[in-house]
């Protein structure tokens, strides 16, 4: 079962003594890979670089900034493959920014998971 972990933090959280150090991210990602559960993941550029797109009545509307004006912003994500929610939650509790920010854990739709595998197989076969 795949789970998406959406990582969020408030900009001022980085000043906290509990804020993650840059090497923490490498250690954590390395742990996911070693456990054989890492599917994908990435950190994101700052929220000031975000552009939100909507199409309304055939017209494309662009907004400078994130889709929702919240205190915490999306800073990155991981997709992991583990047997159940408790395992996913245990990993989420170790994400480097979790002591100052938050991690939302969402199961990936099984169909989407299967489609991704199919696409990979097609790519390999092609």
């Amino acid at each position, binding site marked *: *079962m795949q*789970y998406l972990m959406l990582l969020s933090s408030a900009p001022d959280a980085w000043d906290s003594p509990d804020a993650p150090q840059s090497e923490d991210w490498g250690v954590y990602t390395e742990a996911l890979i070693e456990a054989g559960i890492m599917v994908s993941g990435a950190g994101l550029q700052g929220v000031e670089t975000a552009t939100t797109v909507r199409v309304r009545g055939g017209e494309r509307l662009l907004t400078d900034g994130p889709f929702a004006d919240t205190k915490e912003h999306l800073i990155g994500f991981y997709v992991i493959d583990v*047997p*159940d*929610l*408790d395992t996913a*939650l*245990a990993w989420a509790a170790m994400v480097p920014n979790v002591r100052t920010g938050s991690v939302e*854990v*969402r*199961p990936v739709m099984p169909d989407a998971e299967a489609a991704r595998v199919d696409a990979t197989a097609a790519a390999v076969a092609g």
Partner: protein
Amino acid sequence: MTPLERAFREERAQVVATLARRLGDLQLAEDAVSDAFAAAAATWPAAGVPDRPGAWLTTTAWRKALDVLRRDRSAPGVAVEATMPPAPEPGLRDEDDLLQLVLTCCHPALAIDARVALTLRHVAGLSVPEIAAGFLVPEETMAKRLVRARTKIRQSRISFELPEPEVLGERLASVQAVLYLVFTEGHLASGDGPAVRIELCDEAIWLTRQVQRLLPDDCETTGLLALMLLQHSRAEARHDGAGRLVPFAEQDRSRWDARAIAEARELLATTGRGRVGQYQIQAAIAALHAAAPTTEEINWPRIADLYGLLDRVAASPVVTVNRAVAVGRADGPRAGIALLLPVLEESRLAAYAPLHAAYADLLERAGDDAGATAAWRRAAELSRNPAEQAALERRAARAPRARPPFRHAKGPHRRK
């Protein structure tokens, strides 16, 4: 109780648990068990009750579940048995299954309302209309809440396996919170609430007994069971003939359930080896109240100490209010008021009726009759329980000098 009713009470949860674990699907398990009970109702009266009703129900429910799974397999001719989970051994009572079912229903990833609903539906076996009536919400709302919760369990794959030992404590804390919430809801309704709400107390005690039986070494679960028994032992005495709420201090102690109190004491005597927690402390306080033959003989200094401990283990403004009452009895009303003042200044508890009732009682005993009357009124305005509201209004109306002479008239800390 007919054999079928007894089987429903004693076996149902275990059968649901056994199926849910093997199927990984709570709804499928629940439906199959309902079908099995329908089959029992149809055949037992004529054919007689099986030697082992639980085994009979498990086997029958399992067959019903397989029928559903076979019907649902889209491709005909697929070897169904090959992909089926292994059948439970007939007659095997794996009590870990029951514990797992409770832990899954009370998983902290679910909203507390959903945990309560799932536990009452699938472990206690209450119907959706019963649970809806118990929590004063429309039936449709409760049905939707259950569907949403089961969907989350299935889609996010909340496990039906026992958690790792290092998280068992966190998981049990959630179970205890759910069970105590069910109990409190029933307790609130006592007196003039509908029977289905009052019966929530019995359901909570029954559920807690099951968990305590499975985990006799978990001191907090034992403490919780003792606490419920002690609070429930006063159920009869909490109301007079007219259904009016009788304040704790004025209750007829001979109407307290002595057997429940004795059982709670025995349970408490087995705790204390493990980590002390909020339920054990609250039960110890309730036991001290129960042990006093009269209101005048309550060991307030000891109770005040226990509230001090509770304030450290599980600090909350509500605990501080109770502590202030105890300290007010032990060290005089001024000491109690001093503890209460910071809470009164906090807006969070401004609408909490017991806060104002406690303040009123302390003011009254400190000799501030005008302040006391105002605080009693405020408490009455805020109370949501009609019986309690009536009792508070009587206190507000009662002139201090007209109080019955036995009420703390000779209390050592009374200042006038």
